[in-house]
């Protein structure tokens, strides 16, 4: 594939007796928004964690930008996540004791940017996500929708090449969910970041360029299958 960014081949991962992934393969291209769908317990989140280098699969291979992700040590993967990846979780998982501004600045600071500069860039992102008024508030005092937008800002602040989003609108109502998806996809397209979006909601998946289905630990990609048949 021409501009394949993240390629996973035949991933297997078990937690104890349960096999979360049983030979999953997927390709994420640069700049594309990919929806990962499937029933709960199918292994979607595990696939996401493997692709993001948070979890090491039991077997299989993942390459990111032609580098072997599975062979990297924990320290190297951690460094990669700091520089190249962004994350959004279902429940935000903002650090409750830091202000929203500090939360958004955190990934930059972890990557070594000085505090003043980090907070300046964070503020710009908060503005772009239309939540600059909560900059000095604590996450416990703002609404869910605002919180997720702060989380989106946090995921984009380091200019990542891939953003991993795990049910980002799961805890939000329709309007807030829409807002978040619109802002996320806009920002991703602007910066050219790819987005791997785990969701079980079709309306959310409709924001992606294409979708794959994970069932019983295996990936079903009808688009890829169709292309193969055509080739």
């Amino acid at each position, binding site marked *: 594939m021409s501009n394949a960014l993240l390629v996973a081949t035949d991933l297997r991962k078990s937690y104890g007796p349960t096999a979360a992934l049983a030979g999953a393969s997927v390709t994420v291209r640069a700049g594309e928004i990919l*929806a990962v*769908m499937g*029933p709960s317990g199918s292994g979607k989140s595990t696939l996401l964690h493997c692709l993001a280098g948070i979890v090491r699969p039991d077997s299989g291979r993942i390459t990111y930008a032609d580098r072997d992700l599975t062979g990297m040590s924990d320290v190297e993967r951690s460094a990669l996540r700091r520089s190249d990846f962004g994350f959004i979780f279902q429940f935000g998982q903002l650090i409750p004791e830091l202000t929203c501004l500090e939360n958004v600045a955190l990934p930059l600071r972890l990557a070594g940017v000085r505090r003043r500069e980090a907070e300046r860039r964070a503020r710009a992102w908060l503005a772009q996500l239309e939540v600059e008024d909560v900059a000095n508030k604590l996450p416990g005092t703002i609404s869910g929708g605002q919180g997720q937008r702060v989380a989106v800002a946090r995921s984009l602040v380091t200019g990542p090449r891939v953003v991993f989003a795990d049910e980002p609108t799961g805890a939000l109502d329709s309007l807030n969910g829409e807002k978040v998806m*619109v802002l996320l996809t806009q920002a991703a397209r602007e910066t050219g970041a790819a987005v791997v979006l785990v969701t079980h*909601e*079709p*309306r959310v*998946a*409709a*924001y*992606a*360029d294409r*979708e794959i*289905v994970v*069932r019983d630990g295996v990936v*079903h990609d*009808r*688009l890829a299958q169709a292309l193969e048949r055509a080739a």
Partner: protein
Amino acid sequence: MSVAHTFLGLLESQPRHGYDLKRTYDEAFSPERPLAYGQVYATLARLLKNGLIVVDGVEPGGGPERKRYAITEAGIADVQAWLAQPERPEPYLQNVLYTKVVLALLTGRSATEILDVQRTEHLRLMRELTRRKSSGDLTDQLICDHALFHLEADLRWLELTAVRIDDLRDRLQRSVARDDHRPASPRSATRSTRRANP
């Protein structure tokens, strides 16, 4: 969606020609599937017969599309009544999806296949709608949202049904495996499954 009532509503705003009615209807309410001319003529004829509209004028050239129609008092009253009355929610879908899934059960096929195929299609449409929504005006957004929600509803029903059906089939298969060693059960469901699973 009632074409007749829609025409009446359009005519209430101003008198229109036949072709104007069809064009407006297609653009505003059914861009994917334009109305068939035959349906237009039939609808207009019925409305005329019921005295809800009258012919206001004629363009030279003949044909129903050249006639100009206007609404009557009775027509206005009709529109009013229709708007005030809620739509009947449809507990029984009369579309192909439902038919397909039921057939899958009867012929012993996996419903998951159907689900996957349909999902790809639904999502393709939903993607387009989502794209249109982001670049359109308020009317576009309302229309697209409406369609999106319904498409999603279809998909969700489909997912749940697929799981139910596969579940039921598994249970039946297990009980069939047990019953193979017992005399035939009088239950018709079992027999039909045996027929379905050679």
